[in-house]
């Protein structure tokens, strides 16, 4: 609303003062685009944008988009405006109207047309009205979306024209919604507004709720008000439902992260009984392996970047597994049966590993990129699902299944279970128990390394990465039941979901505390966790 008034004023000023002088030029969009050149204030830039919008010429969209993305430059020598793309130390420049290449220019000679958020918003609005008649359906769709949130009564007529000629049903529906949002704030008759309220009610998202609420507060007409209020209730119910769905989804997502972090520990602590405080550092090592792999790919084979995570997975397993193996052979095997000393020794190891990584890679965060399939989100009803979270859930379950298979279907798994259940008997049967111990510990560490690859996608890759997960991991394993993989799965998911349902009203800090207290109470009642190991071999 505010903006349209500003526009109107700008337009008025334009008509009064500028238009007569430049009437000839005003018709030529290419000349207006050139006005972006030279040092100017943000207000000047905004005035040029609205001038471009008024030309109604869709050809200026290229320059406007470049402006919004920060790719519009002017040459210092003659203030000519170009679209620039970084190429080493130079800029490749293109004509802002046609997009034709215009050679390369050293960086020092080009100045960026300065933009800030309000300028980007002005461009988006201008593009909305300009691209309503664009050739591509996707562009028209975006234009309709922009106009929907703008809700500008002046756009009703252009929208009517666009709706009449629109053939794509999806785009047409969006345009009608955009029209409805504009009608609500216009001075059209009440019946039309009531109809518009119905259209918004069908859209049923937060934005339409906002518009309807504002409309219901402002209107005097009882019919339209009633229609709006009915729509508000319906939308609120819809949103409440999706909020719950969203909480479940977030819970599963947090649960999968906890599962990944804890699943290696379920082996080293759960199966072997080693209190491994350096478990988080194994996760960190996995994340740094991913970083090294990505760096190597960036410099040597940029084409492989999309597959970097798949390359990193086996390497992270091997590196973390090897560190685990060295730890077990060099330290932990001397401390079996002495939990307190193991705890202190592994805590020391965790500090050594952290500082080692800090010395090698530096204390600051390392950038691990997301491949395309891990980026972005899609909408499911009113909830947005992030691809990276979705893949991490899938990945956590795959790792879980794989580990289950190793434990239950392979000779190593059989020996592991035999050794942990009755060491003496296993030794008597000819199993090399020290070797099995080493392999089990290496397996648990390797799995933690794999988790690090996944966590590098959502968390900082810094020397402190592991510390954030160690407490949660122990919580999951203890809660789920020591020595039981299924317990870890159920424990992780339960904690995730409980946490996410508490967070909206208790807050993140209190939510964590409440979860911790609940677990302590639970452990009082069932000291062996959700799924307790039963049978003769369980030590008293």
């Amino acid at each position: 609303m505010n903006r349209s008034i500003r526009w109107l004023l700008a337009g008025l000023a334009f008509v009064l003062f500028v238009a007569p002088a430049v009437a000839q030029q005003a018709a030529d969009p290419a000349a207006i685009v050139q006005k972006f050149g030279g040092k100017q204030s943000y207000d000047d830039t905004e005035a040029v944008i609205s001038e471009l919008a008024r030309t109604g010429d869709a050809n200026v969209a290229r320059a406007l988009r470049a402006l919004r993305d920060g790719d519009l430059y002017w040459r210092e020598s003659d203030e000519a405006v170009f679209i620039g793309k970084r190429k080493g130390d130079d800029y490749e420049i293109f004509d802002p109207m046609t997009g034709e290449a215009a050679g390369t220019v050293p960086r020092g000679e080009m100045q960026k047309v300065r933009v800030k958020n309000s300028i980007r918003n002005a461009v988006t609005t201008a593009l909305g009205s300009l691209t309503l008649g664009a050739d591509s359906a996707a562009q028209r769709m975006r234009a309709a979306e922009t106009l929907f949130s703008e809700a500008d009564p002046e756009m009703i007529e252009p929208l009517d024209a666009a709706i009449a000629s629109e053939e794509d049903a999806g785009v047409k529906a969006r345009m009608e919604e955009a029209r409805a949002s504009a009608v609500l704030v216009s001075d059209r008759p009440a019946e039309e507004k009531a109809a518009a309220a119905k259209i918004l009610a069908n859209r049923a998202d937060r934005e339409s709720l906002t518009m309807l609420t504002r409309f219901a507060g402002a209107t005097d007409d009882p019919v339209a008000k009633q229609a709006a209020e009915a729509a508000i209730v319906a939308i609120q119910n819809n949103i409440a439902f999706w909020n719950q769905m969203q909480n479940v989804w977030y819970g599963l997502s947090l649960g999968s992260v906890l599962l990944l972090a804890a699943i290696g520990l379920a082996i080293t602590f759960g199966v072997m009984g080693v209190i491994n405080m350096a478990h988080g550092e194994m996760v960190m090592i996995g994340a740094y392996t991913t970083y090294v792999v990505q760096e190597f790919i960036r410099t040597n084979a940029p084409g492989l970047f999309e597959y970097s995570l798949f390359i990193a997975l086996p390497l992270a397993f091997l590196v973390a597994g090897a560190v685990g193996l060295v730890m077990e052979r060099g330290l932990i095997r001397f401390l079996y049966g002495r939990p307190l000393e193991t705890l202190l020794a592994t805590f020391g190891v965790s500090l050594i590993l952290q500082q080692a990584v800090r010395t090698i890679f530096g204390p600051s965060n390392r950038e691990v990129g997301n491949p395309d399939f891990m980026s972005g989100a899609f909408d499911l009803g009113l909830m947005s699902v992030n691809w990276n979270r979705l893949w991490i859930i899938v990945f956590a379950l795959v790792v879980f299944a794989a580990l289950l298979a190793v434990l239950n279907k392979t000779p190593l798994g059989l020996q592991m279970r035999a050794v942990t259940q009755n060491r003496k008997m296993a030794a008597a049967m000819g199993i090399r128990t020290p070797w099995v111990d080493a392999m089990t510990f290496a397996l648990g560490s390797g799995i933690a390394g794999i988790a690090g690859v996944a966590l590098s996608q959502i968390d900082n890759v810094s020397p402190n990465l592991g510390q954030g997960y160690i407490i949660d991991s122990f919580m999951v394993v203890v809660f789920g039941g020591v020595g039981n993989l299924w317990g870890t799965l159920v424990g992780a998911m339960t904690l995730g979901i409980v946490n996410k349902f508490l967070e909206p009203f208790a807050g993140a800090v209190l939510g964590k505390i409440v979860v911790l207290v609940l677990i302590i109470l639970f452990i009082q009642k069932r000291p062996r966790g959700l799924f307790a190991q039963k049978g003769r071999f369980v030590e008293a």
Partner: protein
Amino acid sequence: MRSAITWMQKTAAAATITAFSLSGAHAQDTKPSGEPIKVGILHSLSGTMAISETTLKDAMLMLIDEQNKKGGVLGRPLEPVVVDPASDWPLFAEKARELISQDKVAVVFGCWTSVSRKSVLPVFKELDSILFYPVQYEGEESERNVFYTGAAPNQQAIPAVDYLMGEGVERWVLEGTDYVYPRTTNKILEQYLKDKGVAAEDIIVNYTPFGFSDWQTEVSKIKEFGSAGKKTAVVSTINGDANVPFYKELANQGIKATDIPVVAFSVGEEELAGIDTGPLVGHLAAWNYFESVDTPENKDFIKKWHAFIGNDDRVTNDPMEAHYIGFNMWVKAVEKAGTTDPDKVIDALPGIEQANLTGGTSKMLPNHHITKPVLIGEINDEGQFDVVSETDDLVPGDAWSDFLPESKKLEADWVDLKCGNYDTEAKKCLGDTMAEKSN
């Protein structure tokens, strides 16, 4: 860790020796001689805070190196003494004591978190030494032995909020990490916003734990709060490591800076170095210095920094500039006092002026804070900030916020009143009794 420190000391010693040999090249410079003046550097080189503080240690070594090339101070060379308090707050106090009583340093540059500063305060008071503190903080403090070269809330938070109000923001999310700096800053901001006529339902304040990484619920809460039809902004006092996942989650949920801008007080060039800034373009930060500021002083500083650290990719940031200003002010004060005696230097410091790197001249005020410009920058796709707004004048740092009822009446003045918390209503100095209570 011990070996790391000795290694540091060796490097530092080597740097000093290089400085000696290099200074021979400048014929006009007098070669510093005599007993070296020791300068303590108290920054964590290991533990969680190493990420931010290591850079400051390097910056200090560079500044000392520079000064020795220029002929030292009072004709004597400077010698850095580096210790590692390892992000461990009680250890800060121990190391500070070691620096002052064993190494006999003339001055200490150090600390990052408020809790580390609070932990060393009693040591500096007891042993009567000088601390230069280079980080933006929550204010509500003014000590005789401490000089605050970072921003007080009125030099960062308040101007940032003013800028957003000018951009039409009407609804506010105050999002912070759960500790003293965000809590105090948000208390000040909340009061400020209410004074400006923002309704209580248009403000939410939210805290998350240190190192928080699962931002899904928090961000969708922000999204929902922002969909009420009024222009919404997030004022972020989120600290350190929690920032990266926060921004990643914003990008993932499709919240763009044009919809809901985030203005951060703890995110600078150094923090952006670890992330792809493409999705963050347009989000804001408020500081007193940006690496992108185009002044000859800044260009020179960046060039020297790159040469010193041997890596052209290393960025400069706000606390580094604070150390630059603080160090040069200390040098001037020592020259003025003609001695390194802390009492004399403390008395000489207020009124000292030093050109900052953004084109102005900062001045040490009687309340031991300095005047600084306030810059608002938008993140660009190269991990730098484009300045979109700048205060016309330098803003004097205010130790006691005018927006909190309990501190409104307090004033700090170590020149005339000789008091860090003078109650202008009761007309008396509250002294240590009050500091004790507020801790």
